[in-house]
């Protein structure tokens, strides 16, 4: 799972460090705009390839507004982490009130004590989100001639695309794997 973490408080921001550490500990791959020499991302990276966007700070800036809009347009989840006491931006209020976007934008006022809890709740949401079910990861797989023969035969017999058939099989295995299901249930329990 890939998260893009954006904060407009570049200096003296221990909350951002804590939040990123929390995401990383939960197994998320965190890209961010605060680390030196990455200029807001990583070489060849793109917002298209992240699963969710996290904003942390007191107030939105132009770039944060743009990134939030873009991520919402891609039907991905957004977490806005504002320190308790921060005044909610009117544009955020508008988005939170919108019936379509309210499900995608999660605005949380945090304190040091509940930051981890809010992050883990958000991770659970994105792990079950529709975007995680999109077939958008390319996977190159080498197979033997015999396996290829079988795939061709099966695809032909069932009138289904080979990739669709493989995906269906894997999904069945995932559903039936009790150990894995248990792992998923406890994944973000800290």
């Amino acid at each position, binding site marked *: 799972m890939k998260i*893009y973490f954006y904060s407009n408080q570049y200096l003296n921001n221990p909350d951002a460090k804590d939040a990123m550490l929390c995401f990383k500990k939960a197994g998320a791959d965190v890209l961010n705009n605060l680390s030196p020499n990455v200029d807001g991302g990583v070489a060849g*990276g793109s917002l298209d390839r992240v699963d969710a966007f996290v904003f942390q700070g007191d107030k939105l800036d132009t770039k944060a507004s*743009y990134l939030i809009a*873009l991520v919402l347009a*891609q039907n991905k989840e957004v977490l806005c982490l504002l320190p308790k006491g921060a005044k909610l931006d009117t544009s955020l209020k508008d988005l939170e009130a919108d019936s379509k976007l309210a499900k995608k934008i999660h605005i949380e006022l945090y304190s040091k004590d509940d930051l981890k809890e809010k992050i883990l709740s958000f991770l659970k949401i994105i792990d079950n989100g529709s975007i995680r079910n999109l077939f*958008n990861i390319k996977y190159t797989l080498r197979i033997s001639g015999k396996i290829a023969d079988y795939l061709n035969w099966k695809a032909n017999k069932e009138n289904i695309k080979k990739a669709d058939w493989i995906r269906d099989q894997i999904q069945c295995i995932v559903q039936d794997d009790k150990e894995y299901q248990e792992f998923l249930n406890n994944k973000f329990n800290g």
Partner: protein
Amino acid sequence: MPKNNKKIFLFLAGGTCIFTEAGHIFSVKSQDDIEDWLAQMPELNILADIEPVFISGEDDLIGPNIWQTIAKEIIKRSEEADGFVIVSKIDQLINTSLALTFALQNLKKTIITTTSRISGSNFIDKKEVISNLKNKYGGLSLRSNLINAIQVAQQPLPAPAIMFGTRLIAATRAIFDPLGDVNVFSSISDCWGKVDFGINVKSNLKYNQQKAKIYSDKLADILVFDDIPGVPWSFDRRALTAYRGIFIKVDSYQKLGKNKQEQIIKWKMPIVLYNYHLTSTSKGAISVSNCTFNTALIKTMWALSNEFNKKDFENIMTQNIIEEFLN
């Protein structure tokens, strides 16, 4: 809405297909659809003060009449606007952008064009394409394209440009690449900007300082065809009178046959021979190369509009008017 939002006019002329929350495709077919269409994308409002302008519906033909209307509407609103975003059909997006580039030279307002991956409101024939796009990209890309376009429209650019996928491309450099993955437009030179974790627009881009030149006439009707060496051209001369000129895409290494060269002389009308790499000369025709096909085509239509004397045609076609030639 954030304070000091910039005013962006959003022109709608086809290319407006989006997925609704319920998974249906919705497009703007008439003025009445705009409100519902915009309501599908509330996130646009945190970027700018957006005012939609209906130009044509999803099923209307895009061509010189529409380009002329868009140019006129831009001029009408240019004092009030901080920038313009034009949504139009994917198959004509380069030509639309170029028509505006030639019509509105040195305008001190940024014009960005963008589109959805599909166009037209009849989806039965596109069912499989739409299903593939949904699986691969989760949508038709218009929402992201619009957000990027609205963001870029607030920055100074020297001429109209296309925003699609992760690329911002000058209209004069754009080529259609339907097999491209995220990007269906490529650039024959460096892109003006790229999207990764934000939009990185080239730092040296700014408005042209020369006085704005506005050309409001409709682009001329011209006959366009590809030459195939060895296959004769058979045209009734009377049929050619419907056109102001002829644009022929030629082979880069073979000269036109003798008969064809004689035909060109006999036709006595403005004729352009185009090839990206080089073109052989033929008496009575102007050879154009070193620019994109679309640029040469739209420039020919523009140079033959009522704005200019026919005698100036050769002069205009060989001049680098909007930096359309590569070197």
